[in-house]
């Protein structure tokens, strides 16, 4: 009795629903726009790089009135991103869910702690990039990068602090530049701290010999009276603002660059129309005054790539990273 009743009422509901979805699918074919608010996920706790990107982008889009629907920032912390990725991977085709991404989407799976990697998701756009910076104390004997690397060659136990785990961004960046300078990448004594800030205090206190961290993050500690000396940045060209006086690696004869890029990805198999909509939206956002102001304050550099270019870039990055991780003996299962 009950079962029949349920089946009947189900049909009654499903039929009009099917008609509705059919109708909206037809509308989507030409020019897709979001039909509800967009969940914009930062796969980490508040306060970090992903979180800052998500909140800044959501705010600029809202303040500049770029989208009819609002972007809601959601934090899904855990496993260096793996928890959020596992959730998003289940949401195939959902056009209303995006997440912030950066090198860990490649590095974490390579280390073997996430079942999902960048190929499981839809690249939407690369937005910005930051670069690595290598710092020593102002009274340290090293005046430039080459002197630091000579010292490391002589004494491999010289400690280099970074703000992330072995095999993640700071370590890869350091190992890469060391290899380019002719050292054995695995010989660098990399000391992982639980954040760039902690690495920095350890440098100020003289507990480690040098630190590698994000240039944008470090810019607050530079300038007069800081007690720190920047030795080089990983950008292809000199950076702006307080970072303008710092030579690049390449200027010092070390042919290596490293991008800490950040972008946006969507659910697996996100519909093409939706991807096109977001691509255009982000491209438009990058042109606004509100974005420029926020970007400059945070020390970011625009590095837009559309979905296709971003996808190809991610594949390239994966190859590059797996080589370095292999050299370091950190490739996971």
């Amino acid at each position: 009795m009950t079962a029949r009743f349920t089946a009947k009422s189900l049909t009654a509901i499903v039929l009009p629903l099917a008609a509705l979805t059919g109708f909206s699918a037809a509308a989507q074919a030409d020019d897709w726009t979001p039909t509800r608010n967009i969940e914009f996920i930062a796969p980490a706790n508040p306060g970090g790089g992903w979180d800052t990107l998500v909140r800044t982008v959501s705010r600029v889009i809202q303040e500049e009135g770029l989208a009819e629907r609002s972007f809601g920032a959601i934090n899904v912390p855990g496993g260096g991103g793996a928890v959020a990725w596992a959730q998003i991977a289940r949401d195939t085709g959902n056009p209303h869910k995006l997440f912030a991404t950066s090198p860990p989407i490649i590095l974490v799976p390579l280390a073997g702690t996430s079942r999902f990697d960048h190929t499981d998701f839809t690249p939407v756009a690369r937005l910005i990039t930051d670069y690595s910076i290598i710092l020593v104390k102002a009274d340290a004997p090293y005046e430039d990068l080459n002197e630091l690397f000579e010292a490391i060659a002589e004494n491999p136990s010289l400690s280099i602090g970074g703000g992330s785990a072995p095999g993640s961004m700071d370590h890869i960046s350091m190992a890469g530049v060391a290899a380019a300078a002719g050292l054995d990448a695995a010989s660098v004594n990399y000391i992982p701290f639980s954040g760039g800030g902690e690495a920095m205090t350890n440098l100020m206190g003289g507990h480690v010999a040098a630190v590698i961290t994000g240039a944008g993050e470090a810019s607050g500690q530079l300038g007069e009276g800081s007690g720190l000396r920047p030795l080089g940045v990983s950008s292809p060209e000199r950076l702006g603002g307080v970072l303008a006086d710092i030579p690049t690696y390449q200027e010092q004869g070390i042919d290596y660059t490293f991008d800490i890029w950040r972008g946006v990805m969507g659910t697996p198999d996100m519909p093409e129309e939706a991807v096109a909509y977001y691509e255009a939206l982000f491209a438009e956002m990058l042109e606004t005054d509100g974005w420029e102001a926020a970007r400059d304050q945070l020390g970011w550099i625009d590095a837009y790539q559309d979905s296709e270019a971003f996808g190809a870039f991610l594949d390239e990055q994966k190859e590059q990273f797996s080589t370095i991780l292999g050299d370091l003996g950190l490739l996971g299962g």
Partner: protein
Amino acid sequence: MDAFNNLIYGFSIALDPINIFYVFAGVFAGTVIGMLPGLGPISALALMIPLTFGMEPSSGLILMAGVYYGAIFGGSTSSILLNAPGVAGTVATSFDGYPLAKQGQAGKALAIAAYASFIGGTISIIFLMLVAPLLGRVAVSFGPAEYFSLMVLGLTAVVSLSDKSLVKGLIAAVVGVMISIMGIDLQTGTERFTFGTVHLLDGIDFLVVALGIFALAEVFYMLLRGGGGKEQPRNAIGSLRLTKQEVRQIAPPIGRSSILGFFTGVLPGAGATIGSFLGYSMEKRLAKDGDTFGKGNIKGVAAPESANNAACTGSFVPLLTLGVPGSGSTAVLLGALLVMGVSPGPAMLVDRPDVFWGVVASMYLGNIFLLVLNLPLIPLIAKILDLPRPLLLALILIFCMVGVYGMSFSVFDLLLLLGFGLLGLGMRLFGFPAAPLILALILGSIMEESMRRALQISGGDWSIFIDKPISLALLVVAALSLTLPLLRKFRAR
């Protein structure tokens, strides 16, 4: 008097009517957030960031700082009334606060918490004002070796927190350390105790364990005893008034813990939770009636409450003078400041004195507001204890579940909460103390990471722990605190 002039200047900013409003709004929001578990200061601050867009940086920081120390101030309420800490920094407050509430002295416990928080906050602001620029150097003098030794010193408190059976206390502490190292190991990327599930990759949130082992276990325990024993007498809140003798009793612990808490807060990576535990265990050891700690000693409320508020103020030292965040909450504050166009760091005192001194002055105001706001609320909030027992138990249950779910939106964490509730119940039934487990949970992973970092820096040479003077001193104090009670016992024979 340079600091005096600066303070006058700071007050000229903080006393701007709009800033007075921000202080008030901040501490009010903070108190409410602190009382609710789950919505901790970190997420509350992240939610505030959009509000500060377009504000003067000094106003924005005044508002956000108010939320932060307001949350620590308010967090004691649920610790005392429900045995369910609202924020991690107030777990130690429940050790004696909850027993006091059960004895019908909730009003007194809450009043002491408010006074202690106020005094701890105020003393530490004076320190912040006078010595902050110098303290930057103290903060960075702590490297991995020093942190390791500090954590060893902290862990010796297991002995004093174990009361009846030292063996059971040690077992609880070992379990605590094991829980603390769950997840991906930062040094090697190896997974430990994750049982192959992605939910455990980051380990277990401290509050899930604390709410389970304290609050939920209490609910289970009462249920087991069939409805919770004797009904509390009507008007179970008791008087808010302290006798002269009680004031004399809690004054020295508040003074000591305020100073200890402030310096703990100055160290990046230590903070309010560790500060409150250090304050609590220090007072327990110093007190002549140390064996009544954990059973409703007012000093056991005064010490952690003054220490956690002082630590909260102390954590502004590395943030404002070095530009490095010492905790999750200050990391969010740093991000907000950057967005407002201020880079905290050594240059900020010169470039933006309005931000630094404005915030310092606003903290004096904020602490007064908190006291005035909280004291009259105590009788109202404490009425919750007049609820019939079944309702109260259901309320605690909902409170814990909403808190945990609100933190991570993870059903898995709810199951963990249940599991830790059962573990806590088992520990109670078999006489295992919960405090050592919680202490080891807080200190364990920091101790391990620091030790391995230190050894990696020294190339595996253990002498790094005794070559560094601060580290050596901490280890000596730790050794003394373990051996002195023994020596005293021998001499007594």
